[in-house]
């Protein structure tokens, strides 16, 4: 099992990279969706006034 550490490191880098990026994106999307519903509500209020 010599050099097993390198193998582990390579797989860790790939999965950490992909997951971090995916997580970042879905977080961002969650925030954006929130903002959209907030803005829509605000606009509707304006419309009924």
């Amino acid at each position, binding site marked *: 099992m010599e050099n097993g550490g390198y193998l582990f490191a390579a797989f860790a880098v790939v999965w950490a990279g992909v997951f971090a990026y995916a997580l970042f994106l879905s977080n961002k999307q969650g925030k954006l*969706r929130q903002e*959209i519903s907030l803005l829509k509500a605000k606009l509707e209020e304006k419309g009924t006034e």
Partner: protein
Amino acid sequence: MKRNLLLALGFVSVVITLYLIFVWVPTITEMGIVERIFYLMVPMGWLALLAFVVTFAGSVLFLVKKQDRWDFLARSSAEIGIVFTTVTLFIGAIWAKPIWGVWWTWEARLTATMILWFIYLSYFVVRSFATDEHRGAVFAAVVAIVGLVDVPIIALSTTLWRGMHPPALVFKGDIAPEMLLVMLTSVGTFTILYVFLLMLRVSVRRDEAEVQRLKELDR
């Protein structure tokens, strides 16, 4: 909905790929256990290129048709591309250390990946330094087109440049069929992941545009 289906498919194929890499495939070359890094490096390099080709296609369509959605596509793909290219460079370093004894070496493909990384970088630099958003999109599209055209010339020149001293570990003759099978499975898995991330990124971009639109209405 489609995206969740894709995520499930991706998950299953990741499990299969990991099983193939760590349990099923025997160690074939004299490199020992690190040869398994290869099953990551090939798909990563492939994705770095695929993402750039998609960026190129999106950029051409954007310049020709002048519809923002093509720019969304190009930009999203470029962003995923730079993530994968960065990861490829890291794996390259992790691969170089046990095989050549150094963290970095000017091996042909590593060099080419490095140059590609800088071209991706300039794609985003142009965007952030443009005076307005639309102009930035047009300029970035030009950079993507020029960059993709450069890729074959980069590949050719770096290969010839380093070609005199072939790295000792390149597979001599044909590749073992088991290795090929695992490699192709891995490429397929990562391509699914790429498509998933691309769809996610494009929809985030659409939400951003929606926020922008609503804000303008609000004003």
